[in-house]
């Protein structure tokens, strides 16, 4: 059983937003909304300033509060890779999942249901990479099976320093940032 995750090399990401555009195009994300976005975090003291550029999205947490707070079971772990998905026809738009997400990765689609990154599961099922990964001009994003020791993502995570977002929230995110 695969366990899908993503690693993003912050040394290669230039914040070009190709991933954002690819996602919006691939998934028909409505105007004014984003399933993925770019975050720039600057820290340090001049002249020693560090800048980390990150492509962010739903972290497809292993202990996802959006799944446990959903009253109808619309938010669920997909059989393939443990990807966190929303069954639109079961969502009542109560917004409990949005309130429970420490990453604010979800939003209400203009049609009324909760929406977010799906890891482009429709592409993954066809053996392709998610749209954001496939268009990245610097190849900073790696998508793959975290349980396969020979996958590129496992090799990178085993050999490079990395961090996830808000690990203290206890959600076990499956997106990692290589530093």
């Amino acid at each position, binding site marked *: 059983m695969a366990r899908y995750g993503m690693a993003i090399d912050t040394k290669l990401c230039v914040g070009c937003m190709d991933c954002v555009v690819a996602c919006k195009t691939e998934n028909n994300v409505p105007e004014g909304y984003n399933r993925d976005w770019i975050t720039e975090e600057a820290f340090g003291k001049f002249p020693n300033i560090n800048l980390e550029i990150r492509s962010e999205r739903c972290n497809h947490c292993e202990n996802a509060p959006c799944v446990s707070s959903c009253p109808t079971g619309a938010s669920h772990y997909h059989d393939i890779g443990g990807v966190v998905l929303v069954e639109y026809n079961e969502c*009542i738009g109560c917004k409990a999942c949005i309130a*429970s997400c420490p990453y604010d990765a979800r939003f209400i689609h203009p049609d009324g249901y909760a929406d977010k990154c799906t890891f482009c599961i429709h592409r993954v099922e066809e053996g392709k990479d998610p749209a954001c990964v496939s268009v990245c001009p610097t190849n900073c994003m790696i998508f793959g099976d975290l349980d396969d020791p020979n996958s590129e993502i496992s090799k990178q995570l085993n050999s490079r320093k990395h961090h996830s977002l808000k690990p203290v929230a206890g959600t076990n995110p499956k997106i990692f940032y290589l530093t």
Partner: protein
Amino acid sequence: MHEITTTRNNHLIDPSLEIWGWEIPVYLFLGGMVAGMMIITGYFLFKQRQTEETCSCRYVPWVSLVLLSLGMFALFLDLEHKLFTWRLYTTFQVTSPMSWGAWILIIVYPAILVTILITPPKWLVEKFPVVKKYSEWLNERKIWIKNIGVANMILGAMLGMYTGILLSSLGARPLWNTSILWLLFLVSGLSGAAAFVHMVAKNVYERELLAKADNGFLTFELFVIALMIIGLLTSTQVHQEAAMLILTGPYAATFWVFVVGIGIIIPLIIQLMAVNHKVNHTPWAPIMVIVGGLILRFVIVEAGQVSSWF
């Protein structure tokens, strides 16, 4: 320096969460009031006071029915995918307080209706003669009425508790993420309901009893608020920052003036004087308690959405 910039600007999500407007605080308030009314009515039924012509347990369930329906309507208005609301009742999600709440509400309705059946009003009996038959059947069995009273108290407590647990289970919002929130909402619901029944009571016994009970609830509510703040201030940085939102931040004035001052302390002083016969009972104190309870829900829901994990 530590600066974060993002290209994300999702509607109702950025720059801070605004997903829940007036509907949810109103629903939580009305749910709390109904919870308190059920507990009070249940107590009077348990004490077999339904035989008294002026007992509040004869008319308060009607108020509960109306308030609960209004609250559920507010909740329905908040749903964004309204046509799929029925999905709540095709499943039970044990980890979701909202799922628990949906099913609790389904059980609360018949409990209130059965309570109404114990002492139905004349117009109802005239319109539906069968009501009289069931009412007489119930009134011949005192133990049933006691059990209906106990059921009202248990279901009322579950309803009041769930309105707090609903928010406190959402760990991403540190202000809500305190395990004492259920107690705050339950005791606030009880104090609001006691204030209401105190205000409308048709006999001196109930008016005096509920004024005294309300004083107890209000005093206890002050302790619960203090404990909640102490709990947040002694927790992690994000919880401390969340506490500061209501202590000194943008919600502080509303919280201290309307929730603590006008909603608890001033009516408590007035009602303490009333039960000691220094002043006459006045509807102003109960009105202040009820308004304070409503504003408490608004402050907690709105400030909670602003609080986050950095």
